[in-house]
């Protein structure tokens, strides 16, 4: 029988293959094809993109399996889908669909205000959002094989993704600079097991791949997050809420690869058409990043 740890390794390794890439939210097979043709390294199959979830209000749930299957049939790249925080039955359904990655996501309405899914029970991989190192390591301890910043989905405002990435980086640096005997106290404060803190101390990084998500709308946003240490980006509402999705998607893909080449990104940023309108932090009614900590 296959060892649990081996499956977990394979799931972490799939995330390694996604590095340097852009994962795009799509709501139809047609959008999935556009995303793939523009260079997405994976797509997130959703009924509604976060900006529309925000606008519509109400309870937001896992997508219709039929839609997910159609999107799986439309593209050859990995297909991800979201389930509600703590809703392990939705996750079981997504696993039955042979989804490539489950996003246990704060974008949907949480199903459980205390417990996250025990992701170690699953064979398919999970990605989870985090605002800081403690959240990231708690999700990893529960079995997540990839982390993304929470940012603030559906706003087109990068400030929260930046805040979360910087927080995570500074906490990783702090753990790295500690004496070994101080790590036990750090583990206590972060509410995570000692071995994960020890890993961060020794490797100065998370034990899994870390992407930026929540508010990326332009090639410059993507470059900013990559320069802050993201290993790739999720773009949700930013693409299909903009004037020219194909062009913007392709520009963001290229900006992620050459994220330090400002003159190239200047060229990529020309004539992209209208960006998504966006909501400023102060105007947000619902802070999704507060869900599931």
């Amino acid at each position, binding site marked *: 029988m296959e060892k649990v740890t081996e499956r977990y390794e394979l799931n972490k390794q799939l995330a390694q293959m*996604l590095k340097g890439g852009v994962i795009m939210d799509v709501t139809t097979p047609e959008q999935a094809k556009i995303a793939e043709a523009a260079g997405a390294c994976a797509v997130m199959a959703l009924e509604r993109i976060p900006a529309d979830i925000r606008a519509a209000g109400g309870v937001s749930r896992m997508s219709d399996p039929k839609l997910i299957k159609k999107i799986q049939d439309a593209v050859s790249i990995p297909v991800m889908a979201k389930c509600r925080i703590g809703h392990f039955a939705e996750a079981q359904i997504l696993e039955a669909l042979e989804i*490539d990655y489950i996003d246990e996501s704060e974008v949907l309405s949480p199903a459980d205000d205390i417990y996250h899914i025990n992701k170690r029970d699953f064979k*398919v991989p999970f990605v989870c959002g985090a605002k800081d190192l403690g959240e990231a390591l708690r999700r990893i301890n529960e079995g997540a094989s990839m982390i993304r910043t929470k940012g603030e989905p559906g706003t087109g405002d990068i400030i929260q993704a930046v805040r979360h990435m910087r927080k995570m980086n500074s906490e990783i640096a702090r753990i790295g600079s500690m004496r070994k005997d101080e790590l036990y106290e750090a583990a206590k404060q972060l509410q995570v097991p000692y071995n994960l803190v020890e890993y961060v101390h020794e490797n100065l990084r998370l034990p899994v791949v870390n992407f930026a998500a929540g508010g990326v709308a332009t090639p410059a946003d993507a470059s900013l997050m990559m320069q802050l240490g993201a290993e790739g980006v999720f773009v949700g509402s930013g693409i299909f809420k903009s004037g020219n999705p194909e062009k913007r998607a392709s520009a963001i893909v290229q900006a992620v690869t050459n994220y330090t080449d400002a003159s190239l990104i200047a060229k990529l940023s020309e004539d992209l058409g209208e960006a998504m309108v966006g909501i400023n932090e102060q105007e947000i009614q619902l802070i999704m990043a507060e869900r599931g900590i």
Partner: protein
Amino acid sequence: MTVAVLALQGAFIEHEQVLNHLGVEHIELRQASDLKKTFDALILPGGESTVQSLLLHEQNMFEPLKKRIEDGMPVLATCAGLILLASEIEGQETSHFATLPVKVRRNAYGRQLGSFHTESEVKGIGKVPMTFIRAPYVSETSPDVEVLAVVDNKIVGVRYNSQFAYAFHPELDDNTQIHELFLRSISAKS
């Protein structure tokens, strides 16, 4: 000797770590201007072949690299790299570099649930760990292609002149023998 690693998308850092470990000088290829640097061999890493191919074209790197591979530059390709080299891709009318006369099947083991780890023989090395992530395999080869590895009756490693291509990811395991075999073949030639 300097090895260039295609660094457009995917697990290129893992290959660079292996090269660091083996003490081999290397550079990253991210845009056309990087092709002006001097390099003697090329590594095509794992990742998404559709993304890498698109970026090769958008960054005007496709034609010059294809020409160099055709002219005999040694290449080590893993997973997506194998797909980039293959002359034929099942179910697709177009291919990418098409410098390696084999037919490949993409996502041949299905979705992520079909990903697996095993140990098997590679010709000239012996048993090595093999990690297959949404991997392709080689479904047909031209007679002058040397088969290096077979797992479950599927061809997962081939050599054609200076091109070495594997369906799995040697860069993900601690064993560096696949890289060493490649590097030995270059120094034997020069």
